């Protein structure tokens, strides 16, 4: 079916404007110097003009080309297992077809439109980039047309969603960050020279520790150059780098329980990484703590007040709060099911969701919080929208949500938080103007325990870190579902103030509703960094939380027996 294509003329004009009228705030660099940007802009213009004449109107289109350089190295017991240096160049495209009010992709749970992906040449090449963009666009357009036809048939038998999602209009912008590929390649080469030795050294620390039964160090360096061209008039080029090091340690208690922890370090550049000596020291301390933990008693089941301090403050915010602010409307089939929640927070805009005095902002424009480095900074999000500070909670009242361009009736525009294929936090900063100092919090904890007739309370300082990646957080579901969270560092505190460390504990039933009724929060924020396999990062800052009636469950001891023969490094 052919349709009149009223948008074509306007899109063509926008397309041409890529080359002759860059937007405000642009870098001096012209896209004409950049063969990839130029090829994408030219092909976008041609595709939109040409495909408009075919059938389904092509409302919008966007191309994102990502050049990626990465280095990874891993080692155990001082011996290198893997050392890899690689690069890629990939085109992702997103087409919007048909009636903007009935965009099937927005209702299907697919965050994008009709998507395609294509490898691009490693070295920028105008002709081949255009050719590959042409073929990928053709594929995506056909898929889209087919899908729209199917959706039209389905619509005849379905009642429309009460809140259909919409793809937002955003202002055109041009940001062309200068990029020097030779410099990136030099840094990649440096990372390739340094990271293998770094992981050898960090893992060697654990070679003589008989009690550590499994250990390994992994380091990764990522550099990204992204280019966006869209029919909305966005023309963007940005660049980012990230270095991440992780050392994993595992031991086994005599009752069979496996105990593990991870030492993590992140930086925006190789030079920003902590010194090897300092990292070695941190690994040694963690090994000492882990070995000591083997002798600790197993936690007893408990319901009562719990103080989440040190890393556990921001970790709790990451695990329970950070994913709750995803403002993307759920597809109708999920939202009907919705015990999982699904952006239920959107219905609470203007309502109190946290204790009075609490504030949350997510700010991807920040590099630092006081003197602490933050890792969630970026210029534009994955939709090409400029990163923006968002006030999420003020004085405990919900003010906003994290939005991509897939918007909802209450929030008509993106605030630049499209990340990792969905919506994710950047620098997620929790604070309170009614916070207490550590001493007062502990006093409150014991007072609450006393009120409940308990002989002791618990202080959690660190959760098990395997769920604390940015990808895991972004995909953990919304609305702070109540979850069972395994704990690494937990202390039993007697009413007398005497403390002893225990192990094998799980915090159960902590969700957003539990945070809403927090008994108290701390004054000073602790900050944790979250990494991802794609090289994107985030930081979560939060004070301590004192929660009432938290359930502590005991993780029953047991497990595989240790090896029957002695370790060959220590065998006679």
């Amino acid at each position, binding site marked *: 079916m052919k349709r009149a294509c009223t948008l074509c003329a306007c899109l063509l004009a926008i397309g041409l404007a890529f080359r002759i009228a860059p937007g405000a705030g642009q870098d001096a660099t012209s896209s004409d110097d950049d063969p990839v940007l130029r090829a994408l802009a030219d092909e976008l213009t*041609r595709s939109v003009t040409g495909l408009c004449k075919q059938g389904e109107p092509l409302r919008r289109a966007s191309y994102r080309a990502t050049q990626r350089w990465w280095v990874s190295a891993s080692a155990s*017991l001082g*011996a290198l297992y893997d050392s890899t240096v690689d690069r890629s160049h990939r085109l992702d495209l997103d087409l919007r077809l048909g009636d903007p009010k009935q965009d099937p992709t927005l209702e299907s749970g697919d965050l994008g439109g009709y998507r395609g992906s294509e490898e691009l*040449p490693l070295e920028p090449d105008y002709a081949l980039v255009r*050719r590959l963009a*042409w073929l990928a666009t053709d594929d995506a357009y056909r898929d889209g047309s087919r899908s729209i036809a199917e959706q039209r048939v389905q619509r005849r038998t379905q009642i429309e969603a009460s809140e259909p999602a919409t793809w937002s209009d955003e202002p055109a912008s041009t940001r062309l960050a200068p990029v020097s590929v030779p410099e990136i390649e030099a840094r990649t080469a440096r990372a390739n020279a340094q990271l293998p030795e770094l992981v050898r050294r960090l893992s060697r620390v654990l070679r003589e520790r008989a009690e550590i039964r499994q250990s390994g160090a992994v380091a990764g360096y990522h550099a990204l150059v992204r280019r966006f061209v869209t029919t909305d008039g966005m023309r963007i080029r940005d660049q980012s780098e990230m270095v991440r090091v992780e050392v994993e340690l595992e031991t086994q208690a005599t009752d069979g329980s496996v105990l593990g922890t991870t030492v993590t370090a992140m930086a925006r550049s190789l030079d920003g990484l902590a010194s090897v000596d300092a990292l070695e020291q941190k690994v040694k301390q963690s090994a000492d703590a882990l070995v000591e933990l083997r002798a600790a008693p197993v936690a007893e089941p408990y319901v009562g007040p719990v103080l989440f301090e040190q890393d556990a403050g921001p970790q709790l915010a990451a695990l329970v709060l950070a994913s709750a602010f995803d403002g993307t409307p759920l597809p109708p089939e999920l939202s009907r099911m919705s015990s999982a929640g699904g952006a239920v927070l959107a219905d609470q805009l203007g309502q109190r969701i946290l204790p009075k005095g609490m504030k949350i902002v997510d700010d991807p424009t920040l590099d630092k919080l006081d003197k602490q480095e933050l890792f969630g900074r970026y210029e534009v999000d994955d939709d090409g929208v400029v990163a923006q500070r968002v006030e999420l909670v003020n004085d405990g009242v919900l003010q906003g949500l994290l939005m991509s361009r897939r918007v909802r009736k209450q929030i008509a525009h993106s605030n630049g938080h499209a990340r990792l294929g969905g919506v994710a936090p950047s620098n997620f900063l929790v604070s309170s103007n009614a916070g207490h100092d550590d001493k007062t919090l502990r006093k409150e904890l014991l007072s609450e325990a006393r009120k409940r007739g308990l002989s002791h309370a618990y202080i959690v300082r660190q959760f098990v870190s395997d769920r604390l990646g940015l990808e895991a957080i972004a995909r953990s579901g919304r609305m702070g579902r109540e979850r069972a969270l395994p704990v690494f560092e937990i202390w039993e505190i007697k009413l007398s103030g005497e403390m002893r460390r225990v192990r094998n504990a799980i915090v159960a039933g902590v969700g957003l509703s539990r945070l809403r009724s927090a008994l108290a929060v701390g004054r000073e924020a602790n900050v944790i960094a979250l990494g991802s396999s794609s090289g994107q990062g985030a930081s979560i800052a939060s004070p301590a939380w004192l929660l009432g009636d938290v359930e502590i469950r005991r993780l029953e001891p047991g497990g595989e027996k240790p090896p029957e*023969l002695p370790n060959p*490094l220590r065998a006679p």
Partner: protein
Amino acid sequence: MVRKALVLALVGCAAAARPAIVTKATQPPVAPQPVSQALAPRAGQLAPNGAVLDALTAELDRAMKGFGGQELPPYFITLQAHDLRAVTIRAQHGKLIDRDEARVRMMTGDVRVGNAEFDSTHDVGGYGGYDDFRALPLVASFGRGFRGGQLPIDDDAGAVRVKAWEFLDRAVRAARQRYAEVKRERDFKASEEDPSGDLTQEKPAVLVASQSESAPQSANRWAPAAERLSSLLGSAPEVLSADVMVRLMSDARVLTTSEGTRLQTNTSSASLALSAEALSDDGMRVRYVRTFQTRSEASLPAVEQLESEARMLQSTLLELRRAELAEPYTGPAILESRAAAVFFHEVLGHRLESQRQRRDDEGQTFAKKLGQQVLPSFLSLYDDPTLVSLGGTELAGYYEYDDEGVPAQRAVLVDHGVLKAFLMGRKPTRGFNHSNGHGRGAFGMAPVARQGNLVVEASERVPASELRKLLLEEVRRQGKPYGLRIAEVDGGFTLTGREMPQAFKVRPVLVYRVPADGGPDVLLRGADVVGTPLVGLSKILAAGDDFATFNGVCGAESGPVPVSASSPSLLLGQVEIQLKEHEREKPPLLAAPNAAGGSAP
């Protein structure tokens, strides 16, 4: 449900050659007897660059001793490590699109509890066949089809020993558990038709070659060639995709067993694939791939020759794009040599693998046909992994020792049409209590009997012109309007189990209609050759005097392994053609962009 398709893929290398001029390995040839070809390291003695072999052996010895006094001790252990290095480059339409270098050192092993007559790997059925790894003859399995784990790439004996220690501890536990299970299962089953044991007795072999230090280094040299070749392939506007991939690999392997086998070997391989795709006017995606697979980068064809291949490939692809659609057909056909080689690999080769003679879920097509005529008397068949080349073509299935540490040996399978033997790994089968060095598996997969270099020989041969004449005579005799000439294939597969039909498919690329009236051959597209094994083999009427090799990668229950198959052309009295999938895809809606910024004319 048991389903397995044994697949031969990745089209092979150089074409027609003269009859079987055999070149043996230039390295010390593999003798059928136990060998001692190099320094055998004594305890504590390091072989040259032999840190990994020594470390694995030390840990293996410690395990045999340490577990020896306990209940259910292991009676047999193998440890094997592969130091794999690979460089891959890929170009598309004249530009490099990927360049990847990787190195990984992996360990695998086999730990058995019981004894050679009945051990923890015994197949008692009821475990779901190949779809369940427990039915495979392995015990040290920590996941489906994966045995072992990663070793450090640093030659750090201590770190290697720690990994081997962890592996062996878990493997011994798994073997004990598995032994209890198979004993229990045996008690509930009727006695087995094939009472063979579980492990053949072989004399230990020792070969410690100097460890290769060199990774494939010459990817840089191939990058411009790949760009140039992909540009040539894609130079016609009808070509939608034009890809060139070069992969250079090396594998430094060490293998040690509790029987005293100590091997340290180096192998390398190189492959280059030219691939192009176009769309016919009726929307069929037509793809043509040429792969050159050799034992070393130096043996790859010269760039000038590859350029000529690329031009030929493109021109054939464009011809194919315009070719007539094939129709379902049954009647006489010539399988030209490479197609005939794939036919034999699929139809007969897989069915002569020893494990298929004893498993209850296998078709056992030839299990009881030893000494019987299974082919015309003018045909013989053998598999010889020790052949480096045949008629000037390197053979992909060359190796010195199989993946169970047994020296590769020539296995005469069919002599003048009479079935003589099976391909044997270390799993015995009725009447065969020794391996002939065909126990093969991809890394992490339990080895089973597989093909290496399968060779078909004909004692009566006719020139190509005569073969064509015989075809036309047969066509007329059967009253058919035409016969077929199948000139090129890109692979095939077969099903050998009982649950699914015993069928095979060979995937031709170039098929010609040969009219009964002697008119010119007509190129067809969209045809597959299908059939069943016993009928297929019974229809062979004559063999040509040509000879060619198909080098490829064979996928079966022990994973992908490189193989070759060589054969003369064959005349078959009957083949069946079934139509290929036809997508009816429209060409791109817009014309291709040109470099000037607009659309192509």
